[in-house]
């Protein structure tokens, strides 16, 4: 029983991290209809920036915020320099560019920061919380992870539902040409979509780094699981990213706990195959009507 509880808690924590990265993928998919394979390495890069600042004894939270701001800038710059010139070109071109970005950033990080793994300090204690006599596999830091991602999700929801910027973003995603005819500066909205996606990714990077062996490839597997989450939820649905993240996180935690951790990647593959064959557009995405 305690194994089940621990696996569930672990699954929820991991799921929230997948959800944050998946949210970034959803932002970019909604804005530009591109699957951003560079999402993980962008987050890796800003997390390295944070740890570099921490090495220079900067305040933890200042380094944390600096990494998020760096993500914002990095996302905007990448959209402007690498993605914008490819608008109107075949859809595969920018996707290949994001793959190139993935290789470039990991190589760059390896040569600047070194390829070896090191540690990243957690914001809060990682010792398991005690309930009565049992120690849960759930720490103060895990509570922080949950809270941070919930804040990210609520912020996203408020942005989309309650602000006119969010209305512009939705219009630009659903009908870019009509949005332009209504005066929405769609180009800026796309840049903003990439910037916000990179912030979500950076946050995930900062949350993951203390829990894994921190090296330039530390986000690779996370990106695969986040991609699974985004596909499960539907690539254009922020709510789907959250639910997809939790489903993937829990499923992988159970697979790892009961069947062996080496089977986790296979579990992700199984989830992808089941979802893609049963409901290819994802759980929360609306199937696109086909014009006849």
């Amino acid at each position, binding site marked *: 029983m305690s194994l089940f509880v621990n696996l569930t808690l672990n699954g929820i924590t991991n799921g929230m991290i997948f959800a944050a990265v998946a949210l970034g993928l959803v932002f970019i998919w909604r804005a530009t209809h591109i699957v951003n394979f560079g999402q993980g390495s962008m987050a890796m890069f800003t997390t390295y920036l944070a740890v570099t600042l921490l090495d220079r004894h900067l305040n933890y939270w200042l380094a944390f915020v600096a990494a998020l701001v760096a993500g914002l800038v990095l996302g905007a710059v990448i959209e402007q320099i690498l993605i914008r010139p490819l608008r109107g070109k075949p859809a595969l071109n920018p996707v290949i560019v994001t793959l190139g970005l993935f290789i470039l950033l990991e190589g760059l990080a390896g040569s600047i920061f070194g390829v070896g793994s090191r540690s990243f300090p957690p914001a809060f204690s990682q010792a398991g919380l005690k309930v009565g006599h049992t120690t849960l596999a759930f720490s103060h830091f895990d509570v922080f992870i949950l809270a941070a991602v919930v804040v990210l999700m609520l912020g996203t929801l408020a942005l989309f539902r309650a602000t006119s910027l969010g209305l512009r973003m939705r219009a630009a995603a659903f009908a870019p040409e009509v949005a332009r005819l*209504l005066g929405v500066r769609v180009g800026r909205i796309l840049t903003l979509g990439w910037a916000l996606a990179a912030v979500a990714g950076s946050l995930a990077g900062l949350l993951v780094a203390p829990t894994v062996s921190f090296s330039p490839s530390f986000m690779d597997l996370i990106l695969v699981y986040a991609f699974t989450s985004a596909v499960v939820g539907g690539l254009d649905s922020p709510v789907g990213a959250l639910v997809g993240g939790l489903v993937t996180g829990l499923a992988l935690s159970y697979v790892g706990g009961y069947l062996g951790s080496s089977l986790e990647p296979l579990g992700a593959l199984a989830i992808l195959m089941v979802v893609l064959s049963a409901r290819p557009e994802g759980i929360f995405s609306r199937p696109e009507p086909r014009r006849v």
Partner: protein
Amino acid sequence: MLDVEELSVAYGAVKALQGVSFQAQDGSVTAVLGANGAGKTTLLRTVSGLVKPQSGTVSYDGVKLTGLSVESIVRLGVSHVPEGRGVIEELTVDENLRLGTLWRFGHRERRPMLQEIYDLFPPLAERRNRMASTLSGGERQMLAIGRALSSKPTLLLLDEPSLGLAPLVTAQIMAMIRKLARETRLTVVLVEQNVRSALSIAEEAVVINLGRVVIADRADTVAADTQLRHHYLGF
């Protein structure tokens, strides 16, 4: 005044418009008529900046529009209701309308402006919180026109508002366009397949065939020219 001069547009090797010139006076309705593929939609898309011309110019109130971005042209008071209406189905009626006001009005002025549109189209007011995908064809057309008006434009470009509508609904929409032009000095350029109803509300008519202007004259003159009607307008 809208002034289109010697406008030529090509999609690759296909010439969509060749040396098109005409003017639309302030507060008037100008009907742009012609068969399918004559270049009517291309003409509107070029005026609003969605299509870049090969040569020629479009000016509005003395400002050259050619070369400006779509978003900048909108800010000069040009509102374009595209072919197929462009209602965003994933948004509610109210969100669709609000979208039109965003660049134009501050937070406080938006609500009164939306109320004006709801007063103009009462069926929209009843459905303001419904998804736009649930609207009927006529309601969608009201939403598309209402949204275009919500930024208080001075030039309205309408691409086939009657498409797919029942004759009675078409008549109502046309009457509404006529009224708006008369009462608010709105300049309307109306692209239509439905020649009779377009000519019934227009002062001026431009007939386009294979990308060239056949005639640009008073609407009643065009309507009275039996040969021209038979030849280019099919009635």
